[in-house]
C-alpha cells in the first residue's frame, strides 16, 4: 500500500543512501506501486540535474589563513580601544528599528486605500511605538551620524525588521556579539530570535519603546 512515508524514502533510495532492510522494502514496494515508480523517475531526473557537488575550491592558501584571521579578530574584541562601541551597542536595536522604520516609511509604497485601512507594513509589529515617534528616532539617530554605522557592512547592529514581501515577522542580527551584549534582549537568546512568537515580540517591542523614549 502506498504511503507518504515510503515516498519520503525515495530520495535516499535513488542516491543509494538507503540502508537495509529499508532498501529492499522500498525495492519490492516499487514493483507494485505505479505512483512511487513515477515519483522515482522524477527524482532520478532531479538528482541528475542537480548533479555533483563541484564547487570551485577557495584560493590556494585559504585554509591556512582561517585560524590567524579568527585569532586576530578575537584579539581586536578583547582590546577596549573602540570607545564608541558601548554606545553603539546600547543603541543598536532602537537605532536599527528607527532606521528601518525610516526607510520603510519613506520608500515602501503604501498600498492604495481601497476604502479600507491602508497599513504601513511596520505598524502591526510596532504598534506600541507610533510611527511618528520612530521617524523621530530615525532622524535623531541620523543626526548622530550613526546611520551609516547602523546599516554598515560589518560592525553594525541588531536589526529588527518586518519582511516587506512576505508580511511575516522577520528578525535578524547583524553582529551576533552585539545582540548578545544588548541588555534590551536580556534573556532572549540569539537562537530564539529566529523563533520568536508574537508574545515575545510584544515584550521586545515594549522594552524597545521604553528605551527609545530618549
Amino acid at each position, binding site marked *: 500500500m502506498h504511503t507518504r512515508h515510503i515516498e*519520503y524514502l*525515495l530520495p535516499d533510495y535513488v542516491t543509494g543512501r538507503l540502508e537495509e532492510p529499508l532498501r529492499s522494502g522500498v525495492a519490492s514496494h516499487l514493483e507494485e506501486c505505479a505512483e512511487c515508480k513515477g515519483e522515482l523517475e522524477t527524482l532520478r531526473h532531479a538528482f541528475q*540535474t542537480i548533479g555533483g557537488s563541484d564547487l570551485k575550491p577557495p584560493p590556494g592558501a585559504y585554509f591556512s589563513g582561517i*585560524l590567524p584571521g579568527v585569532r586576530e579578530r*578575537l584579539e581586536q*574584541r578583547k582590546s577596549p580601544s573602540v570607545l564608541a562601541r558601548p554606545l553603539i551597542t546600547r543603541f543598536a536595536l532602537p537605532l536599527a528599528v528607527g532606521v528601518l522604520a525610516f526607510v520603510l516609511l519613506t520608500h515602501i509604497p503604501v498600498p492604495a486605500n481601497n476604502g479600507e485601512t491602508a497599513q504601513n507594513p511596520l505598524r502591526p509589529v510596532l504598534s506600541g511605538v507610533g510611527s511618528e515617534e520612530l521617524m523621530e528616532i530615525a532622524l535623531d539617530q541620523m543626526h548622530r551620524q550613526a546611520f551609516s554605522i547602523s546599516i554598515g557592512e560589518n560592525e553594525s547592529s541588531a536589526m529588527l525588521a518586518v519582511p516587506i514581501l512576505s508580511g511575516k515577522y522577520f528578525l*535578524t542580527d547583524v553582529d*551576533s*556579539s552585539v545582540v*548578545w551584549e544588548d541588555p534590551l534582549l536580556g534573556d532572549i537568546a540569539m537562537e530564539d530570535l529566529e523563533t520568536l512568537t508574537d508574545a515575545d515580540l510584544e515584550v521586545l517591542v515594549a522594552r524597545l519603546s521604553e528605551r527609545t523614549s530618549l
Partner: protein
Amino acid sequence: MTDRSDLELVQLFQNGDESAFNHLVLRYQEKVYWVARRFMADHDNADDVTQEVFIKAYGSLNEFRRESSVYTWLYRITVNIALNSLRRQKIREAFRIDELFDAPDTESVAPDEAAEKQEERSLIENAIARLPEKQKSVFVLRYYEELPYEDIAKILKTSVGGLKANYFHAVKKIQEYVRRAHETY
C-alpha cells in the same frame, strides 16, 4: 594535541588552555567552510560566515555541555549564522528597492560549453537559494554533507520524520524550478 578527542579539547579549553581552541578550528575549518559555502554560494560570504562561526564558538565554548557532540554543535552554529547572514542579505536587498524590481535572475548565455555548465550550476544555486530555510538546511546537510538524519535532527533541533519530508520536497522544488527556468528560454 592533534590526537585528542573533541571533548578532551573542550575540557582543556574550559580549564584555561587557549591553544585547545586552535586545534578545534584546524580540525573543523574545512567542514564549516564547505557547509557555509553551500548556503552562501560564493567564497567571500562563506569566508565571513566561517570566521563568524569560530568567533561565536570561542565565545560559547565555556558553556558547551557534553549533551551534544562538538561537530553537531559547530554545524548548528554554522547553519544559524549562515541563515542569519542570508536574512541580512535579504534586508539589504530590500533597502535597495529599485534594484529589487528589475534584478535579472540569470545572465545572458555565452554559447560555449563551459558557460552552459556554469549557467546550469547557477540555476541550481538559485533554486537552492529559493528554498525555505528548513528545506535548504536539510538539503545541504543531507545531499552535500551526507549526514545521517539523526545528526541533522540534532543540528536543526527537529524530528527525523519531518526531515525526510523536508528533503523530499526540497529535491522536488529544485527540480521544478530548473524545469520552469528551462521552459522560459
